[in-house]
C-alpha cells in the first residue's frame, strides 16, 4: 500500500520557546514498541482511542529500538539480538510484513594483532538522518560506539573517530562503568536546520556536539552535576540518560541526567538544573525526557526512585509523569488515570514518546509490559496494553 509522505516539521524561523503553531492535520499514529522479547506495532485510529496490535515481530529477540523513518513514513528499522546470537539490524519497507537483515550491521573495526578490540553487544539507539539526507541513519551501540548508514540501514560503518579515539575511550570507561546491561551511546540528535550539527550522549561519558558532520566533537558539561564525591571535570563520571532537542526551537535541549533534569539554550554552553523545581518528595531522577513538537517550553519526565540503592521504581510505588510548560520553572503532575499506589514499574529512557498531532499524544511503556496512552498531552492516561514483555523503547510514528 502506498502512503503519502508526512508533513515536514518546520524548524527554521521558529521563535525561541514560543512556537505554538498548530499541527496541519491529524495523522494516524503507529506506536512502535521494542521489548526484551520482541517488537509490537500498535496502530491507532484517527481518534487514538482504538488500537490494533500487530505482533510479535522477532519473538524472543531482545529488541532495543524500533524507529519509523519520518522522511518516507514507511521504512522501519529494528535493532535486535538474541540471548545467543550477535546483534543486527532489521529493515522493513512494508510496515513489518517483511523484514530484511542488514548485510553489514554496526561493528567496531578489527583490532590490531594482540589488541583485544571491542565488539558490539547490541545496537541501542537508532536515529534517522537529516531530511536532506534521505538514506542516512545513525546508530548508537553498547559498548559505546557511533555508526552511520548511508543506504537506508542496509550497511553500517563506524562514524567519525570517537569509537577508537583514546580520549573518548577513557570517557567511555569499561563495561563495569556502564548501566546494568552495558554502557550505551544514545540520544543521537541531528539539528533540523543543519545536517552537520550533531549531538549524542553517553552513559557514561557525557554529552557531545559536532558542528562539522562528526569530524570533531566538543563536550558540553558545564552545569551538570555528578555523583557526590566524584570529579565533575572528568567526563567519565557524567551520565546523561536522555537528551532531546526541541523541534520548534533547535537551540533548546532538555536532558534527564543521572543527577537531575537540565535545560540548555544554545549558544550557551551552560546547562541549568531545572529539576530543582520538582517536588522534593519526588526528586528529579529518571530516564525518559520528552519534548513538545511545537512548544519548546513544554516537556515531560517520568521520575523514578534514585535514592539509597537506586531501586529504579516509581517513587513510593506511585507512578507519575510531570510536565513543565514554562521551560522548567515549575512542574505539574500529569497522572490522572495512572495507578495511585503499590505500583513498582518504571519507564526506561527510550520508552516515552510524543506524536505530533494537536493535541499531541503521549505514550509510555513500562518495565512490567504495559502501554499507556494520553490523547490530551498527559492530562489523562489510559492503559492500552498489558502483559507485554519488559518494554525497552516506545516511538510514535506518524502515518499520512
Amino acid at each position, binding site marked *: 500500500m502506498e502512503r503519502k509522505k508526512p508533513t515536514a516539521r518546520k524548524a527554521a524561523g521558529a521563535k525561541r520557546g514560543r512556537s505554538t503553531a498548530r499541527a496541519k492535520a491529524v495523522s494516524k499514529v503507529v506506536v512502535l514498541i521494542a521489548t526484551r522479547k520482541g517488537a509490537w506495532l500498535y496502530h491507532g485510529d484517527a481518534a487514538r482511542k482504538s488500537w490494533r496490535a500487530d505482533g510479535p515481530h522477532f519473538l524472543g529477540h531482545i529488541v532495543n529500538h524500533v524507529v519509523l523513518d519520518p522522511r518516507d513514513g514507511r521504512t522501519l528499522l529494528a535493532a535486535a539480538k*538474541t540471548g*545467543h546470537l*550477535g546483534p543486527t539490524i532489521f529493515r522493513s519497507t512494508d510496515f513489518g510484513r517483511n523484514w530484511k*537483515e542488514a*548485510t553489514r550491521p554496526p561493528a567496531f573495526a578489527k*583490532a590490531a594483532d594482540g589488541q583485544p*578490540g571491542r*565488539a*558490539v553487544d547490541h545496537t541501542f539507539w537508532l536515529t534517522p538522518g537529516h531530511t536532506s539526507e534521505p538514506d542516512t541513519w545513525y546508530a548508537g551501540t553498547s559498548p559505546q560506539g557511533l555508526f552511520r548508514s548511508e543506504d537506508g540501514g542496509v550497511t553500517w560503518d563506524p562514524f567519525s573517530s570517537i569509537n577508537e579515539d583514546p580520549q573518548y575511550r577513557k570517557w567511555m570507561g569499561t563495561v563495569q562503568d556502564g548501566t546494568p546491561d552495558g554502557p550505551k551511546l544514545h540520544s543521537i540528535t541531528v539539528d533540523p536546520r543543519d545536517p552537520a550539527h550533531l549531538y549524542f550522549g553517553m552513559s557514561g561519558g557525557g554529552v557531545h556536539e559536532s558542528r562539522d558532520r562528526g569530524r570533531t566533537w566538543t563536550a558540553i558539561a558545564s552545569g551538570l552535576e555528578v555523583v557526590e564525591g566524584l570529579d565533575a571535570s572528568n567526563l567519565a563520571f557524567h551520565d546523561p540518560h536522555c537528551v532531546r532537542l526541541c523541534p520548534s526551537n533547535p537551540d533548546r535541549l532538555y536532558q534527564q541526567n543521572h543527577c537531575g533534569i537540565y535545560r540548555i539554550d544554545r549558544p550557551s554552553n551552560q546547562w541549568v538544573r531545572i529539576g530543582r523545581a520538582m517536588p522534593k518528595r519526588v526528586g528529579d531522577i529518571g530516564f525518559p525526557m520528552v519534548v513538545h513538537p511545537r512548544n519548546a517550553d513544554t516537556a515531560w519526565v517520568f521520575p523514578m526512585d534514585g535514592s539509597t540503592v537506586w531501586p529504579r521504581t516509581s517513587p513510593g510505588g506511585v507512578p507519575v509523569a510531570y510536565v513543565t510548560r514554562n521551560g522548567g520553572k515549575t512542574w505539574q503532575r500529569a497522572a490522572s488515570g495512572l495507578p495511585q499506589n503499590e505500583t513498582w514499574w518504571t519507564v526506561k529512557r527510550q520508552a516515552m514518546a510524543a506524536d505530533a498531532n494537536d493535541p499531541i499524544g503521549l505514550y509510555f511503556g513500562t518495565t512490567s509490559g504495559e502501554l499507556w496512552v494520553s490523547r490530551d498531552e498527559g492530562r489523562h492516561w489510559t492503559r492500552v496494553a498489558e502483559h507485554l514483555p519488559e518494554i525497552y523503547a516506545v516511538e510514535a510514528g506518524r502515518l499520512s
Partner: protein
Amino acid sequence: MNVLIPAPLRSYTGQRQVEASGSTLGALLVDLDRRYPGIRFRMINEQDRMRPHIRFFVNGDQVFDLLKSLQSSDEVLIVQALSGG
C-alpha cells in the same frame, strides 16, 4: 562436511543440516556465511571471537579455536549454550 545448525540460526539456512567446506573451523564459517549471508556475524564477533553463548563441536569434541583443522569427513555441530531467561 556436515554442519548441524541450531534452531536460532535456521532462519538463515532453512534446514537443520547443511553442507559447507573449509580446512579450519574459521574457514568453514566463512564458507557458511558465503552460502547463508549474515550467519557468521551472529556467531563470531568483529574481533573474530566466538560469541559468549555459541559453542562448536567437531565430532563430539568442543572446540574453542577457529584455527582448529578440519577434515572433509568431520561433522560440525553448532550449539546455542544455555544462557538463562
